[in-house]
Structure formats: C-alpha cells, structure tokens
C-alpha cells in the first residue's frame, strides 16, 4: 500500500471550540450545541443558506468540512474530485429520536418531512457534496469507537486505485449536546505522513 500520502490539514470541533491544524479559530464556552454551532457558523462566515435547515449532525459535519475545504480554494463552478469517508458511533440517533417523538402519538400523528429526511447519518455527506460539487466516492461507517485503521485502509484504497485525488475523512459524532468532529484531508502533499500512528495522534491531541 502506498505510504506517500499525507494529511494536508485537519479540523476539530469539540467542547465549544473549532480548530484548524491545531490552532483555535473559534470558541464560545457558554453555549449548548445548537447555540454554539449557529454562532460558529456566523463567525466563520460559512455561506450556505440551507445550513439552518440541517439536523445537528449535518451542521457539525458541514461546518468541519467547510473549514477544511475553504482552505483548498476550490472552484465553486467545477466538479471537485474529493472522496468522503466518514464514521461515527451514534449514527443518526439524535434525529431518529426527534422523528420517533413525532410519530408515536397516533392521535396527533404529524411526522415532519424536514426531520425525517435526516434520519440517516450519510445525509451530511450530501450537504457537503452539494456545496462543493463533490460527486466522487463516499461512505459513512458506524463503529463502536474511532477506527483509525479502517479510515486509513479505506482512504489509501481510494487514492491508490485512482478513484479520487483527495479524501476528506474522519469522525463526526453527535447525540444531544455530546458532539465531536475530527475531519482531515488526505492527498499527495502535506507535512504529516498518512499513517495510523499520526491519525490516532491527531485525533487524541
């Protein structure tokens, strides 16, 4: 397997803080997730009208991806050959619960289409793909815990078989006010070698 791939940048969103390549770019300590992500969206000038309609998991994934992809200076008019490999533990349970609440009362049965549409974790990939014109490979895996080896193998496979030029990958976990995003971009260039040790190190930093 080719070991010449590199992590060109990484983003973390956790504990009311957004960081890019280890540097904090936004923090706000006194908010729940909903208020925090809204304030971060505005502060980071994330321009996407449908952001407020997304579910919480998609907002988290979208903002982390946006922080990384903004740095790539992609042409908004052109298709971009970037694959996505995401993972988490909770799947879409946060939204699944909201949907369940709306359908459990048979006397007052009004399931919201806007909630139902997010009852799959990979919908967040669609939101990112729409904004950045990513029509390449994408996957969303569910694990008991962060699985660096699987992300490494999957990403290397995509790159070595020329399925894509870059891979946006990582972990986006959300359940209520417990949330954590760790996304990184893998490509041919960069200062951090793409191996399991470095992925684990960045995740735990």
């Amino acid at each position: 397997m080719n070991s010449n791939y590199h992590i060109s940048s990484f983003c973390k969103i956790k504990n009311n803080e957004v960081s890019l390549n280890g540097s904090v770019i936004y923090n706000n300590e006194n908010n729940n997730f909903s208020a925090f992500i809204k304030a971060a969206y505005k502060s980071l000038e994330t321009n996407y009208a449908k952001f407020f309609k997304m579910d919480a998991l998609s907002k988290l994934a979208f903002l982390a991806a946006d922080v990384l992809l903004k740095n790539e200076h992609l042409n908004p008019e052109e298709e971009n050959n970037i694959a996505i490999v995401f993972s988490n533990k909770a799947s879409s349970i946060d939204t699944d619960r909201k949907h369940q609440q709306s359908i459990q009362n048979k006397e007052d049965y009004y399931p919201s289409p806007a909630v139902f549409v997010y009852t799959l974790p990979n919908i967040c990939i669609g939101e990112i793909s729409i904004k950045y014109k990513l029509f390449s490979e994408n996957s969303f895996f569910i694990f008991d815990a962060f699985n660096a080896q699987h992300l490494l193998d999957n990403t290397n496979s995509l790159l070595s078989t020329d399925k894509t030029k870059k891979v946006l990958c990582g972990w986006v976990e959300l359940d209520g006010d417990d949330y954590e995003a760790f996304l990184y971009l893998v490509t041919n260039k960069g200062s951090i070698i793409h191996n399991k040790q470095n992925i684990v190190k960045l995740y735990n930093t």
Partner: protein
Amino acid sequence: METLKQELKKNIVEQLNLEDITVEDINDNDILFGDGLGLDSIDALELIVMLDKNYGIKLTDPKQGRAIFESIEVMAKYIFENRTK
C-alpha cells in the same frame, strides 16, 4: 384575514427555519418558492403538514400545493375557505 396572514408568516419563518428572514420581510404577494423565498420541495411537504395540523386541511395530492403555496395571499384565502379547525 390579516391575522391569518400574520400567523402564516410567523409559522413559515419558525417551522421552515428561515433564520435570516422576519415576518416583516415577507410581503403578502411575494412568491414563496423558487426565486422568491427560496423554499424547496421538503418545505412544501412541511407546509402540507402544517395545513393539516393547524387548519385541518388535508391535501392528498402534493401537486395541489404548487398553486396553494404561491404566496401568503393565496394561502390565506385557501385556508379561510377550506379550514375545518
């Protein structure tokens, strides 16, 4: 009818998460979909649910929504004439 229009605007802003739009920003004859407020197909389904939940109006054919949801003016008139609650 004026009260109903204001109620509709408030519900649309709240239920469709139109964060940057206020009730005052929506004129009675503004086009709601496409180039107007920019609502999409999921929003249309939400409005169908709202008609049922708030006014007891069941739209069995989603295509009906195209005409009914043209503007606040048109929606209010339709609700006024067809509401069961």
